[in-house]
């Protein structure tokens, strides 16, 4: 699609959507959002960019092979699931770390579910982007 307007707008749009996707990923545990939705939003942003600039530049900005990103995501999710095994808990049990907690406030809560969600995010982004790139390259 050789439209200069679309191409210019698509970059801006992609940037916004990627930022928004990270925002969704981060706040997902308490507000609407999460890794799956964030991943879809990010993928949609990338797809818009890919439609405007072609699959080659989409590959370029992804830096890594989409399939590798997807599999990395899967790997991260599995690792997040395996970590509690070290502490003797069951597979996929949540492990939490409370940074700066006080008796009334839990502070910054970081846990393996967040890592798991990041894995989901990566798997969705890589999977969808990979399919789109493959389709665009073949037509």
């Amino acid at each position: 699609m050789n439209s200069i307007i679309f191409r210019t707008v698509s970059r801006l749009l992609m940037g916004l959507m990627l930022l928004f996707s990270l925002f969704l990923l981060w706040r997902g545990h308490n507000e609407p959002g999460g890794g799956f939705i964030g991943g879809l939003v990010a993928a949609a942003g990338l797809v818009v960019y890919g439609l405007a600039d072609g699959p080659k530049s989409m590959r370029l900005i992804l830096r890594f092979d989409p399939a590798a990103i997807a599999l990395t995501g899967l790997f991260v999710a599995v690792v997040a699931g395996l970590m509690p095994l070290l502490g003797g808990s069951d597979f996929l049990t949540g492990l939490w770390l409370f940074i700066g907690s006080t008796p009334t406030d839990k502070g910054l809560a970081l846990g393996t579910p967040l890592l798991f969600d990041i894995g989901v995010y990566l798997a969705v982004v890589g999977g969808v982007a990979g399919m789109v790139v493959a389709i665009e390259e073949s037509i």
Partner: protein
Amino acid sequence: MPHSSTRAGFLVGLISAAALCTWFVIQVPGIAAGQAKVIAVDWVPRLGVELSFRLDGLSVLFCLLISGIGVLVMLYTSGYFKNHRDQGRLQWLLFAFMLAMLGLVTADNILLLFVFWELTTITSFLLVGFDHENRKARRSALQALLITGGGGLVLLVGLLMVAEIAGTYKVSELVASGELLKNHDAYAVVLGLILIGAFTKSAQFPFHFWLPNAMAAPSPVSAYLHSATMVKAGIYLLARFQPALGGTDLWFYTLSIVGAITAVWSSIMALKQTDLKLMLAWTTVMALGTLTLFLGSDVRIAALAAMTFLIVHAFYKCALFLVIGNIDYASGTREVDRLGGLVRALPVTAVIAMMASFSMAGFPPFLGFIGKELKYEGALAIAGEPYLIAAAALAANAMMVTVALTIVIRVFLKGETHSDRERISEVSWRMWAGPFILAAAGLLAGVFPDLLAKSIIQPALSEVLLRETTVKLSLWHGINVPLAMSIATVVIGAILFFRVGHIRRQIIRVMRFWPVTGDRTYQRALSGTERFARNLTDRIQSGSLSQYLTIIFSVFAIAVTIVWITHRVPLDITKLTAVPPLALVISALMIGATIAVAISRSRMLSICALGIVGSGVAVLFLIFGAIDVAITQLMVETLFVVLIAAVMLKLPMFTGQEHPGAGGRTRDASIAIGCGIVIGLITMAVGVSPLDLSITDFYEQASLPLAYGRNIVNVILVDFRALDTLGEVAVVAIAALAVIALLTVRPQKHSS
């Protein structure tokens, strides 16, 4: 040896086989004293399957043959395939086959026995098809696989029935519950199933034809599998189950008749052959028939004849196969008409060939003589049909004399070889050491029969008869009926040998009009199956997407309707709650968009309208407060529209031709409307039935204290039901990989 993997395969195989063989030899005295060696490890305890192995008299006889001959064959292979690029593969396969075979004869659990049984089938498939670029080798490998593998499945059913009747999966316990099995109503069925398994494996009539065809395998493979080991697996099974299932008229007549037909028929077929290897293959079928014949009776002397002949046959037949391999290797031909006088060029091979042939012909002082005398003695002792069995044994033995004379006189002593080779020279030591040891063993065991009698044959016989017995073998039995029959055998064999050209022409003339052969029946069944499969596939996998969708959606609508009517699902519309006005507006928009999809003549318009429907669903989720679901739906819908649009842009506009006719449109419309009604009804039915909110309540209460999150949907996804999510993510990744593979692997037609 060129490759390290070749050397590794050879050394691992050879050293392991030698070590195993040594270990088995060490076990012999203990086992001869009646102490079976048992090793058991739990495998699937819940199903009662354990990796249990039992080394008793019968097993150790087979184990010694398998591992001992394995060593010799592997050594032989390293010479025969010297500098062959695939020697490593062959060595590894031989080794794998040996392990499978050892497992088969020692397995003490019936399911384990079956697993090893099929493992030998699979490894033999790979071994027969070793020369995989040759069409004939592939066909033979497949034939052997289908027949022995199919027989294996039949055997499995039989074994399971036996185990259920006897109430145990342990082979050693099963064998002792003969009375229970023989008096059971299903005895005939069980027996039939097990015998089919044994007969396919051991190439008994009418399944015998795969064995001569399997001669497409390289010589060492034929020597190992098709003379000494794999084809004896069926014989092992018969011997093992003789105490459990034998001793009845049914067992006796089935085995005697099948064995006799196999032996006599293959004798005739062997006479017809001019290829030495095929000639040996048919005599192997004959030997297997003879073994079956003798296992039919539970008379002690008959079983003794079978056990002795088993060893005799393994020694001489394996040696002869390797000798034929040497002849082929040195001269480039196996055709008996082109060979002659090879004793000058291949003196060592000639000596081996003579020793092995004399043992086969049953000349004293070779072990073959003892085997033959025992066979005659056994045949005459069988109460049921002594003359039938004696006559079959006589015919088979006379044939062996003929084949032995053919090899010794026609190939090695008389005439000259007409070969393409300029010079025929003796093979390397690796290629004569194995056959020499086997042939010499046949001589040594004949001169000193006590070497085997007490230590090997007696324990094996005790297992077959399931009672203590003593064995004494000797060369000289005095002047009696068996000796007279031996003399008759030699005379008939010699006459056949001098008339063999004439007989061969007669057989070929008759065979031309022979209506059915196993091979042709097999071919017909195979191509019939292929034709049926092709027709079926053409019908249910037309490749037309619209046809698939028609079938899927019609089945869905009809099936749900049937369930609905038969289960009388109640549907009380008055209980439906009121819908917010905004939802009504959105619904109207969606209905309009749906109609637009159906009637539009432009792809782009259809896709956009479809997008409106999807986005409408997302807005409905939003109205009812499911924000996460709404975002997901919106994103998926957007991606879907963008992707389809990207693909569709490259396609031409609707021309009207791809639209089905009026009848087709009516059909499509009714399917679509039917599905819509069914889905709508289901949704309503769900809406009116009382909702169980206990799970929702639990998540609402537990989300924050247990998982530190207020967004229940996300907490469920990443914590409470994270395993589901992990599975879904894996599906996403795998689906993406599959799409990428499908699209990139496809051959590019347009780009050059």
